[in-house]
């Protein structure tokens, strides 16, 4: 069955950071109403809700959230469902929403997510995040998420024969870059902070899981994001600047111990990206910029390789040579990424969509990618387990 073209009508995102005074519902509602206000539709046009949330049970004592949220934001009684795929929760939700509209099940839906990890505190937040590693065979050793990427960093150093201290200097540049961009993004957790971070600051900050330091890591974040999707025909009738979904891909893997040394090649990401490129009939060379899942500095490097932008083992050089900076050939994370903007897990995927849509509409004035027509997102759930890629553009799929 042929798929219909699908487009984004509107996007919304809360300020990322610390929100002790706003619930998971409040954060979603705020993002939703920003998206709704620019979509030129009525509430009754929205036929279904797709909600991403990772650990509402642990941070807020709440599950079964999607129906409550639909009711609380004025979408009484519509089919609503929650997606949990760790950090890729709202990206999986986005892809399911896209597929439902593409296959004609709905004409117009809302997708998004919210999460409150900053408010939960570091110990609960770290344990909650660690529920996304293998709950038995990895958790028994106390493996955490910084731990997963520390294991990957040491393996990368060994496999590609880059001395760990040299690799760490290049990893630190990811943090320097993403903090520089996060510091000028008014919705970022670190807006006006750490914009002039230096490599030495990263290397000398507190060690979390060796060799990763505090500034190698994204923060714990509270926030929400939302996107309103519709068939392209519907979209062109109601908004002047629809952004089209050109391709999506998703893949997965078992625990880190099942992936073995493939972890540094992020095979599910390679599969998901290839699926998205194939659907979009595009190649990595066609992509003007990407919002990538830089939960840790090494994660961004591995991602750029697995998505096909650089050869395996060369991603670290790309950041050091300026290729992934705003004026480079492939700007990576112009919104600050997870490191600079923050990482409210269940809201992160549709926040990446938010940033790509804003860029493509020419509304990302604080860090614009010049003449951008095609952007891509990359969201990783768990320890290289769930991978979702989305390609968006200002013209319909060719």
């Amino acid at each position: 069955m042929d798929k219909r073209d699908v487009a984004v009508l509107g996007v919304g995102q809360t300020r990322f950071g610390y929100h002790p005074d706003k619930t998971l519902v409040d954060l979603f509602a705020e993002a939703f109403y920003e998206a709704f206000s620019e979509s030129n539709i009525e509430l009754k046009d929205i036929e279904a809700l797709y909600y991403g949330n990772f650990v509402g049970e642990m941070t807020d004592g709440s599950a079964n959230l999607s129906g409550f949220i639909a009711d609380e934001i004025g979408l009484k009684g519509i089919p609503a469902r929650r997606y949990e795929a760790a950090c890729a929760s709202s990206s999986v939700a986005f892809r399911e929403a896209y597929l439902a509209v593409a296959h004609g099940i709905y004409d117009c839906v809302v997708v998004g997510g919210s999460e409150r990890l900053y408010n939960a505190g570091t110990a609960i937040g770290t344990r909650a995040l660690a529920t996304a590693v293998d709950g038995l065979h990895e958790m028994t050793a106390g493996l955490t998420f910084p731990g997963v990427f520390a294991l990957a960093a040491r393996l990368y150093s060994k496999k590609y024969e880059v001395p760990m201290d040299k690799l760490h200097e290049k990893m630190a540049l990811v943090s320097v870059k993403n903090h520089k961009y996060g510091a000028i993004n008014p919705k970022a957790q670190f807006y006006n902070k750490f914009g002039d971070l230096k490599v030495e600051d990263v290397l000398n900050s507190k060690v979390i899981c060796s060799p990763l330091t505090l500034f190698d890591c994204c923060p714990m974040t509270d926030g929400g994001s939302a996107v309103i999707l519709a068939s392209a025909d519907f979209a062109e009738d109601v908004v002047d600047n629809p952004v089209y979904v050109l391709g999506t891909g998703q893949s997965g893997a078992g625990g880190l111990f099942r992936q073995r040394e493939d972890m540094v090649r992020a095979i599910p990401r390679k599969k998901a990206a290839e699926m998205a490129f194939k659907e979009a009939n595009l190649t990595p060379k066609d992509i003007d910029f990407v919002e990538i899942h830089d939960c840790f500095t090494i994660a961004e490097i591995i991602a750029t390789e697995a998505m096909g932008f650089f050869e395996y083992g060369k991603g670290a050089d790309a950041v050091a040579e300026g290729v992934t900076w705003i004026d480079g050939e492939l700007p990576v994370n112009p919104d600050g990424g997870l490191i600079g903007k923050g990482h409210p897990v269940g809201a992160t995927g549709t926040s990446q969509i938010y940033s790509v849509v804003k860029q493509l509409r020419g509304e990302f004035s604080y860090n614009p990618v010049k003449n951008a027509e095609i952007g891509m997102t990359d969201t990783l759930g768990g320890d290289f387990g769930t991978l979702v890629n989305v390609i968006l553009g200002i013209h319909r799929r060719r």
Partner: protein
Amino acid sequence: MEQVTFKGFYDFLLEGKLLGLKCLDCGAYTCPPKAVCDNCGSRNLERAELSGRGRIATFTTTYIAPAGYDKEVPYTVAMVELEEGPWIVGRLEIENADEIGQDLIGEEVEIGGKEYPTEMFYPDKKRRVVPVFRLLRTF
């Protein structure tokens, strides 16, 4: 198809034995056990005791612990490539992993098990058995 439950796997580990599954179709070993051969997907498997030896593939020392593990920091988590091929996650029994650094990768270890108190969310509500890796030579 011979079943090895997670309780059985950790009971044996506490006795110093590492259990896995050997595939009668492709010959590959799967450890920890799962429903199918990790290499070819076959369910034609038999229980096998592995050598309990391997080499360090990668490691990290954790200084910030999740709730339930805070009394154990700092601790070093490692991934070990077993002689039979599979990789497993456990704790490396060493105090100065960060001083030695990358040179630890490739070092030979033998594998045992150590019992810790369980924590609120761990699947085994009675105990937590951690695979522990002992270096065969000292640094």
